[in-house]
Structure formats: structure tokens, C-alpha cells
């Protein structure tokens, strides 16, 4: 059994978070909870997520999870953001169960971003 608390995937995502940063876009959210701070920004076109960026203050699992989300959701329909579940990230990275609360902060941020994107895409009455 490995005593390393980080998987090779977590280490790689943490070492080279290609999606760290901010987009020049009004579609952005920021969430702070559980000792984690996360902000997400998005560029949307034709109902698809064109680009995602994150900024995060948290443990390596949080940073890796944020990077994994951004990398995995570019090119997907914006409706996927509203249906995002952290459980897939928890399993694929993986993230230890005791850090579930922190990864759920990312889930909150992604769904909040989904709502923001949806509201911005819906024509005013």
C-alpha cells in the first residue's frame, strides 16, 4: 500500500495546471467555503463551453480537481455545467473521502457558473 497521499494524476495536475488563470469574460463565479477559495471563469459560444480557467486556494487535491474539471469540460454543452457532480472527480483522481467537503466546494462553484452561463444565455423577456 502506498503511503503517498497523492496519486500520480493528482501530482501531474498539480504540477502543471494548464488552466490556472482568469479569462477576460464576464462569466465568472467565486466561492469560499471549507477553507477553500475557488474562482472560475468561462467563455461560451454556440451553447458550448469554449474555454475555462480557475484560480484556487486549497490543498493539492483541490487544485488538481479544479484543473481536471477545466480540462474535462471545455468543448462540452453548457448544460453539462449544471449537471456537474464532484463524485466523478473524487473517484478518478482520486480524492480521499475526508476531503469530500472541499471538492464539493468545486461542485458548488461549477453549478454556480452553470447558472450564470444559463442566465446570460437566456434572452430577456
Amino acid at each position: 500500500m502506498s503511503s503517498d497521499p497523492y496519486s500520480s494524476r493528482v501530482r501531474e495536475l498539480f504540477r502543471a495546471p494548464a488552466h490556472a488563470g482568469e479569462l477576460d469574460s464576464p462569466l465568472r463565479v467565486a466561492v469560499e467555503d471549507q477553507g477553500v477559495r475557488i474562482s472560475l471563469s468561462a467563455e461560451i459560444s454556440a451553447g458550448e463551453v469554449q474555454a475555462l480557467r480557475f484560480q484556487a486556494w486549497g490543498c493539492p487535491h483541490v487544485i488538481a480537481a479544479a484543473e481536471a474539471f477545466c480540462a474535462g469540460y471545455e468543448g462540452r454543452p453548457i448544460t453539462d455545467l449544471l449537471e456537474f457532480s464532484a463524485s466523478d472527480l473524487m473517484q478518478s483522481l482520486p480524492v480521499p473521502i475526508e476531503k469530500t467537503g472541499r471538492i464539493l466546494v468545486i461542485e458548488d462553484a461549477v453549478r454556480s457558473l452553470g447558472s450564470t452561463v444559463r442566465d446570460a444565455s437566456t434572452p430577456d423577456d
Partner: protein
Amino acid sequence: MAERTELLYLDYAASTPVEPWVAEAMSALMTADGNYANPSSTHSEGRRSVEHIAHAAGQLGSLLNTDADRLIWTSGATESDNLAIFGAARYRQERGRHLITMRTEHKAVTDPFSALEKEGFEVTWLDPEEDGLLDISKLEAALRDDTQLVSIMHINNETGVTQDLGTLGAICRERDVLFHVDAAQSVGKLPIDLAALPVDLMSMTAHKVYGPKGIGALYIADRPGVHVEPLLYGGGQQRRLRPGTLPAQQIVGFGAAAAIAQSRMTDDLRHLAKLRERFWSGVRDILGVMTNGAMESAFPGILNISIEGLEGESLLLALEPLCVATGSACNSKSQEPSYVLRALGRSDDLAQSAIRFSFGRPTTVADVDFAVERYKDAVEKLRDIAPGRAA
């Protein structure tokens, strides 16, 4: 920065490598062609083993300027602390049940005191000043007629802050209160003269001073009223205070490490002071960086620094391949910040961002320069990733 992938060990406050000469001395007592006999045996090989142990006790006694027969061998500083604290408190409980220690002690001290509280002893927990030092007046004010034991560590394992044993011990001696010192970090690193210091009990270990793990000692002063009740029973060894077959090879290793430490302590201290100064000069201008504990009163082998705005666990991973210690008890199950740094008044965030760099004999200037660059890079990277605070 040049890529460097091999580990760089800067955690010498946690443990040190065994000096080759020490390992050689030990191995001679372990194999069939050496002297592996039980020192309790009365045959010639057993007596030879006793002689090896006596020689080692002499080496450690010489380092500390005390008679070798004042030293009780244990498995390490944790056991020594337990034997001293439980043993002295119980031995003197008819005289009183009040004890004093500091909140910044190692768990090997705080946990026994907490356990004694459950046995009905009363413990006064002293807070340090912001610089980590104990205000003498706090100790004087805490002493009572029924106080029996004061336990204060010499070098703090997290911050390196070094307490004034002479002054603290004199106050205790004046009140006929036993003074125990956890010297796990200081034996073999700082000059200690037990013939002159008013110390009654001192805990020590070999593996912090280039000796083997699994061996320590407790010094018990030859003074009326200084005694401990044993924690273990089962044999007559060591005046029945700590029975059990003596691990001659471990003891010989401790003795050899003590002899080396004695011969090169001045050089070691000069080397460590140079390294710490170089490291601190390299990082002190980083925005928000600060030392934990006053450097001027700290052992030069340890430098503990916090930084504003960074998360400790991520900082630790970003620092790889440096092997350093986080100032937090942080692991995947707990994010509790260091109780030592909290006692110094650090916020949870600052305590969690703390990194303890500890240098040793093998550490080079190039190692320190690499560590400085690595720290700077890690800080820059994590600050780039971090958002501003959410509204």
C-alpha cells in the same frame, strides 16, 4: 532554475543519518563474529558487553559532563519523557500534585501531562511569548507550595527557540521543585554541562545527533528527592528503573555519536549558523514571509518560516524534491494547524503555511541555494494560482 529531481533532505530536526563510524561500531556487536552477548549474562562475553555499555555511557557522560551512572537507557526521548514525568510526579505525589509545563512542548511531554490530569494531578500550562521564549515571571507566578515538577524543553523542535535552562532551573531549585528538560533536540548540538546546570531530569535521544533510532537516555541527578518510579517491571536492570535487556549495539551507537558530537560541536554550530543565515538572506525579502520564533534565541539548525496567503499542504508539495516539515499537523485526515505556532500567536492560516527547514552536517551551501530557489518558485506558483478573497 536548473531541474533537480533527487531528494534534498532538510529535515534534520526529525532525524539524522547514522555516521559511518557509528554504524561500524554498532555492527561489531550484532553479528556472530562480534560481541552479541546479553550484558546480563555473567560469562566473559556478557561481561565484555557490559564493558562496551560502560564505555558508551562514559562517552555520553563526557558530552554532558556528568557521571555515567546517572544515565538510564531508554528506547528514545519519548520514553525518557514519559519515565521522567510519570515517574517523578507519582514518586512525589504525597508532597503535592501540582505540575507545570509549557503549551509548546512536544507531544511526548504534553500527552503525559494530560494523562496525569486525568489521574487527579493539576497542571499549569504556560504560554510562551510571541518569540517563543518563556517569561521567567510566568514560571515564578505559577509555582506553588504543592508544585513538584516543572518540565520545559531546551530547543523547541518546531521553531528552534532555545530556553534558558540555567535561569529556569535555578528558580525551580530554589523552591525544591524538580526540573525536567526534554533535550531531544539539543543533546550533542549545544553545550550542556549537567554538573553546572540546575537540571534534575533530562531526556535525550540518539537519532537526532547522527546516532541510531531506538535508543535514548534519561539523566537523573544525584540529589535528594530526585527519583522516578519505574514504568516497566520485569527485571533488575538499571537499578530497576528501566528493566529489560540492554541493547548493547544501540547504546554503543549512542555513545559513539556522542563522542563525535563532542569533538565537532563548535564546527557543527558554525556550519549551521552559516547555512541558516544564507537561507534566510535568500527568502527574507519575499512578500509576507516571517520567521516563527526569535532567530536570535534559536538553535541555528532550525528555521521555521510562515508566509501570508499560501496554503501549507500545497506549499509542501510544491517544494518537492525538498524533504521538509510542515508547521501544521496537516495530513489527509487533519488540517489542524500547529499548536506550537498557535501558542506563539500565529493565525491558523499563518500556522498552516509554516515550513520547518532544518539543516545538518551533510547540508551544503549549494543545497541551501537550491532550497531558496525552490521556495521562491513554489510561492510564486501558488500565488499565481490563488484567487482574491470572495466577496
